């Protein structure tokens, strides 16, 4: 008797999600920040205040971290490049710089937050995209070296050792913002919310019925379709792919994820990388890094750690899903020619 009622309750609530009537409208906001479109949905009742607090937190971070805002801490740091000044920074910014440097060391040559001059040379910053001249690229590449970014954590300060160097936190800021927004929402008692920070999806808690959030990974070759669907709880899924921002010149496609070794768009055999982790910042940073690294190195790195999972979409239409996701994932692109495989440790 009891079992039947529990079952009935569970199932009715489960199906209730499909029926619009059972799914109360969440408090939601959509806004532009960090050069991308963000949305926050809070499903707990009376979540409006928490939502606004999280939004303000993100916008505050944007002001601290934006390279295009002349009043930001990053602009301050960049403006003192090469003049020897140790620039005093907000503790959050120092933490973020330290973290970004550590990622550069984890996978040497695949990630560098001082890539900004090269991004400028390609026009990805100003949105006037073009292939840079060889001279322009060489000049810009000479400014890329996160080893010349000195961070003094104790003093909460940093310094760029060479004039012309610039830091851009674009590859980690959204993950950091997700972490802060997550903390703010939880302080406000939120247990069920979804953040979409420009394609980085952070699942906070679970759905109100306790089930996992269903998050689709975009098919990089057909962005209106899903590659697969993941079940997430208290995790971020961050995707990097060349399809997000690119341009064509002389019949050649150039995308925005630049390999810090070559200065050219990364060509590692991958179409997209999705990193799933309960560490929001790690997920964001690793998606870019592992896209540059390529499938083999990405899987080797995954095997060396326990704190994230991967969905890799390769240029030869294979979708490699790491074993930690196996239980909660379902493929969605077989009819478009994808083959799915599970990577094991």
């Amino acid at each position, binding site marked *: 008797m009891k079992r039947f009622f529990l079952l*009935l309750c569970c199932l009715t609530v489960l199906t209730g999600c499909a029926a619009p009537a*059972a799914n109360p409208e969440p408090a939601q906001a959509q806004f532009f920040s960090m050069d991308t479109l963000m949305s926050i949905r809070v499903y707990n009742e009376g979540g409006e205040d928490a939502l606004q607090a999280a939004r303000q937190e993100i916008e505050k971070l944007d002001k601290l971290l934006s390279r295009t805002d002349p009043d930001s801490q990053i602009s301050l740091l960049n403006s003192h490049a090469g003049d020897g000044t140790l620039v005093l920074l907000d503790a959050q910014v120092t933490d973020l710089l330290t973290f970004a440097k550590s990622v550069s060391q984890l996978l040497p040559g695949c990630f560098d937050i001082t890539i900004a001059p090269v991004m400028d040379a390609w026009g990805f910053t100003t949105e006037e995209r073009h292939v840079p001249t060889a001279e322009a690229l060489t000049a810009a590449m000479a400014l890329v070296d996160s080893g010349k970014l000195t961070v003094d954590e104790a003093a909460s300060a940093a310094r760029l050792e060479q004039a012309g160097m610039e830091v851009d936190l674009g590859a980690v800021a959204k993950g950091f913002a997700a972490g802060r927004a997550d903390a703010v929402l939880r302080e406000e008692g939120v247990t069920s919310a979804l953040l979409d920070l420009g394609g980085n999806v952070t699942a906070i808690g679970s759905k109100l019925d306790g089930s996992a959030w269903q998050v689709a990974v975009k098919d990089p070759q057909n962005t209106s379709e899903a590659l697969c669907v993941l079940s997430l709880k208290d995790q971020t899924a961050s995707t990097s792919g060349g399809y997000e921002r690119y341009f064509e010149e002389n019949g050649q496609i150039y995308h925005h994820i630049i390999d810090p070794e070559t200065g050219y768009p990364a060509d590692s055999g991958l179409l997209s990388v999705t990193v799933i982790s309960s560490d929001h910042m790690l997920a964001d940073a690793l998606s870019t890094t592992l896209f540059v690294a390529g499938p083999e190195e990405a899987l080797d790195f995954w095997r060396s750690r326990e704190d994230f999972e991967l969905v890799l979409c390769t240029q030869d239409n294979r979708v490699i899903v790491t074993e930690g996701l196996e239980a909660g994932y379902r493929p969605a692109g077989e009819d478009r020619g994808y083959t799915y495989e599970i990577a094991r440790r």
Partner: protein
Amino acid sequence: MSVSLQRLTRSAVLTALALALSVAEGLAPLTILVPLPGLRLGLANLVTVYALCRLSGREALLILVARCLLGSLLGGNLMALAFSLTGGLLALAVMALLLRLPGLSLFGVSIAGAAAHNTGQILAAIVVLGTPAPMVYLPPLLFCSLVTGAVTGGVSTLLVHRVPFPGKV
């Protein structure tokens, strides 16, 4: 035995029987075969049919209410009580009505009872959960009630004929 004591005793025995049947049913739930929430054979309904046929509507009601209350004590909760009471009462009302009609056998009565029980449960679920979503389970449950109702109808026919006079020992 005095009449009232006799009634009390047989009601108690039947209540215990109904309880035992519903517990037994819970041990091997039909939902393992057909994953439909709320689906069960409805063996406890046998007792209701029997009580309606061989005792009286009043006693049938008494047994039903006692069974539901005790059942929820045995391992249910308030929500479970609401579900089983609503279903049970609706089934009882429908069967009491149909038993007065001339042309039916216990098969038809049981089928209608099973259907009414399912309808009552779903209505209770809608009220308790505050959403019309459980309604989607009603059509398949109604189809299933044809089978479960026919089975309990067959068993109750046997029961009513083999044990025609309760308590006259």
